[in-house]
């Protein structure tokens, strides 16, 4: 749902911070979906909703590697927008499914906006081969590029939260129980964990099995 104006404003500012954390400034990984969605959920009133959404988005993002000039979906602002809208709902797996699809679409748009920003940065940066570059000018343009990234994230989160909130408010497609959605979400989460294992090399299959055994033990102990 669409958050209160104060919470929406806080989400927009947080979205800008998340966007710059992704690449431009810091890279403390506030921009990881599990962090961004949880904190956005806390801002919008339900960190538990945010954490649940962040859990899924993080699982889907484990296999996205920002190597070199690779183009990839940008998860941070999308996670903030989706969590900001999802936090106001009563929990249902159908709503989670809808907001997850929204986030996966929005992070594609966010990724495209990163490409646009990088093109803008080409204009802001001194062209190669110049023999003289004023230090103050370079510094100002560098800060301007970071500011543009912040603004990009803020706009993405503002628009995204409103759009996701509107979609959730329609509600006509949400099954009350959402059993199929629950099963599908469990399946994609389990599948994503399997895929994540491939990052670490097939030779570690014994460790995967050991982890699975501990997981079974945890399930048994939890009843």
């Amino acid at each position, binding site marked *: 749902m669409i958050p209160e104006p104060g919470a929406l404003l806080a989400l927009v500012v947080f979205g800008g911070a998340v966007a710059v954390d992704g*690449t431009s400034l*810091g*890279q*403390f*990984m*506030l921009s*990881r979906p*599990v*962090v961004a969605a949880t904190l956005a959920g806390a801002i919008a009133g339900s*960190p538990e909703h945010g*954490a649940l959404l962040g859990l899924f988005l993080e699982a889907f*993002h*484990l*296999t996205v*590697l920002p*190597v*070199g000039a690779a183009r990839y979906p940008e998860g941070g602002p999308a996670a903030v927008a989706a969590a900001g809208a999802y936090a106001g709902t009563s929990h249902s797996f*159908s709503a989670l499914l809808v907001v997850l699809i929204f986030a*996966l679409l929005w992070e594609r748009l966010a990724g495209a906006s990163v490409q646009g920003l990088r093109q803008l*940065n*080409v204009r802001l*940066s001194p*062209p190669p*081969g*110049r023999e003289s*570059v004023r*230090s103050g000018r*370079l510094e100002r343009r*560098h*800060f301007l*590029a*970071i500011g543009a*990234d912040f603004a990009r994230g803020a706009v993405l989160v503002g628009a995204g939260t409103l759009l996701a909130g509107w979609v959730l408010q329609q509600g006509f*497609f*949400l*099954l009350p129980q*959402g059993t*199929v959605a629950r099963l599908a979400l*469990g*399946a*994609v*989460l*389990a599948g994503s964990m*399997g*895929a*994540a*294992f*491939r*990052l*670490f090399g097939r030779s*570690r*299959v014994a*460790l995967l099995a*050991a*982890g699975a*055994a*501990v*997981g*079974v033990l*945890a399930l048994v102990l939890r009843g």
Partner: protein
Amino acid sequence: LTALTRGVRRALLLRSFAVQGSWNYQTLIGTGFAFVLLPVLRRVYRGDEDALYAAVARHAELFNSHPYLATVAAGAVARLEDEGAPPETVRRFKTALRGSLGSIGDRLVWQAWRPACALLAITLILLGAPWWAAVAAFLLVYNALHLWLRVWGLHVGLRDGLAVGRALRDAPFQRLGERASDAGAFLAGMAGVLAVGDASRGPAEYALGAAALAAGLWLGLRIRWAVWAVLVVVWAVDTIVVATS
């Protein structure tokens, strides 16, 4: 090290957090690298504006590195500039270094450390830990290595200058990456089972979850398309069921 006062070193470290601030397709982090070096260049070329602007132009050219290990190059180049090394030597050194700094960081941080830390957070949430504990665990563990890499990189760069390659070879990056991958593989197994267990209420549902886990193992990095397909199909079925009921 005349120009490299404590204040300048601190400025180098702080500015390194913004090394990717103007990332672009032409010079990659070149502009950001010049931005990081500015406090050093301003001291080295104090009183000679033309030489300063020429040095800024040289350092704003194409450069790339893993962002956390850019401090290795920044420290070493700061030392070379302070010692008055010829520009061509500095340029060749940067060219030689950038491939290593990129590949070491990508393999250690992006491919091993970050996924392992994220899996830690996922596992904690699936185990029922409070949300703040999962987030705090992720941020603390991840950034312990992140911050150490930045500080260590600047230290060895300033200390070793042109000979920084030896420090990179001797650093325990390989071993650290292996241990992180071990932890990641273990946590992937644990989180996979917990994900199946959380979503399942009966034998058929457990079987579905187990099949999904196996499919993920098989698909690997291609899983994202399968995730998309499942989510969209289920949403469409959900919508049709509601519309017709």
